[in-house]
């Protein structure tokens, strides 16, 4: 066991980020790009789609692990919505490191609480 901690990653959830990531993940559900419609459905604002949450978790870990790392698994438990105007802050801790395989415990927080918590497993120097 090691208590290695990943550098924090704070992402300002601008409408541009919410909308451009939704479209880049080919998710055209209106609550991810249409503010008026999202509000009419009872949401505070447009919010991150799940494919983006997965992508940002991946980015958070590979930013730290570097381009030689190969991600094998991302397990995410989804929590509160990540609304436009909020800030998503990722923190992580290495929970195991065995034979080149690293497991990282990840937590992504917004002002309402945990948006995503889970684990990412990667090979430090793997073949894709």
């Amino acid at each position: 066991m090691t208590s290695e901690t990943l550098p924090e990653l704070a992402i300002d959830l601008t409408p541009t980020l919410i909308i451009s990531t939704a479209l880049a993940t080919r998710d055209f559900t209106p609550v991810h790009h249409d503010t008026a419609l999202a509000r009419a459905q009872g949401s505070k604002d447009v919010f991150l789609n799940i494919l983006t949450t997965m992508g940002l978790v991946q980015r958070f870990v590979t930013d730290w692990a570097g381009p030689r790392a190969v991600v094998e698994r991302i397990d995410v438990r989804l929590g509160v919505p990540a609304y436009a105007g909020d800030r998503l802050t990722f923190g992580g801790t290495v929970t195991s490191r065995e034979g080149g395989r690293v497991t990282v415990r990840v937590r992504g927080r917004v002002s309402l609480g945990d948006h995503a918590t889970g684990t990412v497993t990667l090979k430090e120097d793997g073949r894709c």
Partner: protein
Amino acid sequence: MTGTPTGTPTGTPTGTPTDTLHELAAKQAALGEVRGAPGPDPVNAPMIRHWLTAMGDANPLYLEQGLAPPAMAQVWTMDAPRDRSPVDDVLAALDAAGYTGVVATDCRQTYHRYARLGERLTPATRFTDLAGPKRTALGVGFFATWNVTWYDADDRPVTEMLFRVLKFRPPEVAQPYPLQPVVNQDTAFFWEGAKRGELRIQRCGDCGALRHPPGPMCPACRSTARTHAVATGRGTLYSYVVHHHPPVPGRETPFVVGVVELPEGVRIVGNVVDCPVEEVEVGMPLRVTFRPMDDRLVLPLWTPEEA
């Protein structure tokens, strides 16, 4: 019926019974893996670049090596024509049973390898589990779980995903009761009492005489000092009318408006409920009942006293 609380959140499932939902889930799970249409485009650099830019991901690996970011797995088939998957029938049945709310709870992806530029991926969906009904913070609901596997041209899995959603029955929003009493300094004690389940009668602070409806001055001694007593909640029907017309907002006609004589010596106006209109009669013994009409208002109403 008059006096029935409106908009009370319902916690128990109705409509399609739980058994039917579980039977459908078992049937869909028995279908096993159902293939979908392949992604419309092969894994390609423009979509990868677009994705990396939007995510702010500066990892050079992907475009240098001709590989897709692993978390893009689902992206490659988002635009594929959607055939009906085994999941859709379960979600539709949950909608029909009133579990119309949806929130994703878990997403777990296993990457056997990174997808390569030029290859086309085909998804296959397997419904795995329906658990519930369960009481959650969002309401009563079912957890539906399914797995999607993306296969390459050689039918080898590239990515596997477990996805779980909570389908919940949204709590009904209580509509405000349209007939609200005017609450002022003279009457506030009465309505506060009703909220606590007390039938309060104004009492003169000097001579002790009870009076109803409440007012600023004692009709017996003209004192403005006042307090209140709590009535026993029993009474007899002194007089009544049955209201058929005109319609009254928040009420179903016919309903009974009664004058109830209390043993404490005052009379009070209130609806007689839980009793067929034709069985209401002058002199019948009544007992007060406190009914929440919405989030704010509790009305004292009158029901027949059990013999």
